């Protein structure tokens, strides 16, 4: 559904007075239940902008490409943390940003909806979201039952940085324990952990959608694309996929804000958050740091304390 008129007017004002050159939001897309990113440059186009629980993309992933420009952007609660991640890493100046925040009840996973209705995901036609229901033809699925699995463990429904708030705040507790899967995996033996890791990653087909969707994956040349030295060969071998997932996730240690964009983007349903959440939990435990909360705090691997944990050293 279109944005409230006050928000539209605000965006038009920003565009007219030159505070922003482009506004990044969502518009209704050609695929049912999946809004698509839109780049609005003129006041006339502002009516294309929508917000509803089909707005899955984390638009912050586009921001690093707009360095040096003045940008307006729409963010959900989880996405807003990615903005703070970029601010903390000095990747984008706050004064060039205008942020419209939306509180999000959880975004719709078309695969889950299709599963609930017992039809192939390609057959979802005339689908829309209204009054807390996902409607497909004359059938309805409650919104809570059609979210991404990671949205059920969401404790970040509301944006924590925004110039304008477009809807009412949502105060609901996570249905699932955010760290539940991590604690389960920690309790496994080495062999079981390895099997779990291999099982999860065996579905990866190295499309790099996770990297492309990640707002913090802004390296100019990713280690997998490097040729001098060439670290990585894009083959079907399991160990290459494991290497990719291990190194990409570890490069996000202390940086991952837990927006879940990678996991939602994965066409194969690899639960990448299972690995990133472990790193976030460890960073919290060892360095008392949570990424994506405080733009002034120094990222944990860019600083140190003399009394840091030393217990693992021989």
């Amino acid at each position, binding site marked *: 559904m279109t944005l409230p008129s006050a928000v539209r007017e605000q965006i038009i004002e920003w565009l007219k007075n030159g505070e922003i050159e482009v506004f990044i939001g969502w518009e209704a897309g050609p695929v049912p239940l999946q809004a698509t990113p839109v780049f609005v440059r003129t006041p006339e186009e502002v009516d294309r902008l929508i917000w509803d629980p089909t707005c899955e993309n984390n638009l912050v992933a586009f921001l690093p490409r707009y360095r040096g420009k003045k940008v307006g952007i729409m963010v959900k609660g989880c996405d807003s943390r990615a903005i703070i991640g970029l601010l903390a890493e000095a990747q984008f100046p706050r004064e060039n940003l205008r942020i419209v925040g939306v509180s999000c009840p959880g975004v719709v996973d078309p695969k889950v909806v299709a599963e609930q209705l017992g039809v192939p995901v390609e057959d979802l036609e005339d689908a829309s979201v209204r009054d807390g229901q996902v409607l497909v033809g004359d059938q309805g699925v409650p919104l809570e039952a059609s979210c991404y699995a990671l949205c059920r463990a969401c404790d970040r429904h509301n944006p924590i940085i925004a110039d304008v708030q477009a809807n009412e705040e949502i105060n609901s507790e996570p249905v699932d324990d955010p760290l539940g899967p991590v604690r389960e*995996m*920690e309790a496994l033996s*080495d*062999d*079981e*952990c*390895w*099997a*779990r*890791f291999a099982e999860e990653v*065996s*579905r990866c*087909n190295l499309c790099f959608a996770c990297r492309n969707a990640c707002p913090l994956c802004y390296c100019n040349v990713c*280690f997998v694309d490097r040729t001098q030295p060439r*670290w990585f060969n894009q083959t*079907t*071998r*399991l*160990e290459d996929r*494991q*290497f990719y997932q*291990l*190194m990409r996730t*570890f490069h996000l*240690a*202390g940086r991952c804000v837990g927006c879940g964009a990678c996991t939602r983007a994965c066409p*194969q349903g690899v639960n990448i958050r299972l*690995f990133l959440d*472990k*790193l976030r939990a*460890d*960073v919290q435990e*060892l*360095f008392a740091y949570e990424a994506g909360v405080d733009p002034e705090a120094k990222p*944990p*691997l*860019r600083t*140190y*304390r*003399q009394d*840091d*944990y*030393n217990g*693992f*050293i*021989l």
Partner: protein
Amino acid sequence: MSERTTTSSEPQDWEPKVLAFLCNWCSYAGADLAGTSRMQYPPNVRIIRVPCSGRVNPIFIVEALRQGADGVLVSGCHPGDCHYLSGNYYARRRFALLQRYLEYLGVEKGRVQFSWVSASEGARFAEVVTKVVSDVKALGPSRRLNINAMPVPAVEVADGRPA
């Protein structure tokens, strides 16, 4: 690192290969002292000299395991003694996370170890290497992440999912 480990059946007299990244200013000099003092330590360790433990990118450690190292040791100056003042402090944060993460993914505890050895601690260096080699020996040949030990995956079926 271009050497390949044998894969399927390990011979009875298997000896682990341990790759050691030693910082130029402390641990490498410590290893040198161990040598010139004629101290005995296992010959299983292959040393790569790096300017500082802070130079060791985690990808080096994972790549070593991929290429067939059975264990990896990273050693630097004691906290406070870094030639570059703070390189080992930064390294310590990275390694603390990496070691836990590798364990979480199922790489056996003890494959990747870290130590501080100063230039005057030749005996300490011999002791550290002895411990790391005996730990790795107890674990047996490294198969996880090792590109030479992995089975070739099954042929994928038409819908793109592994069979």
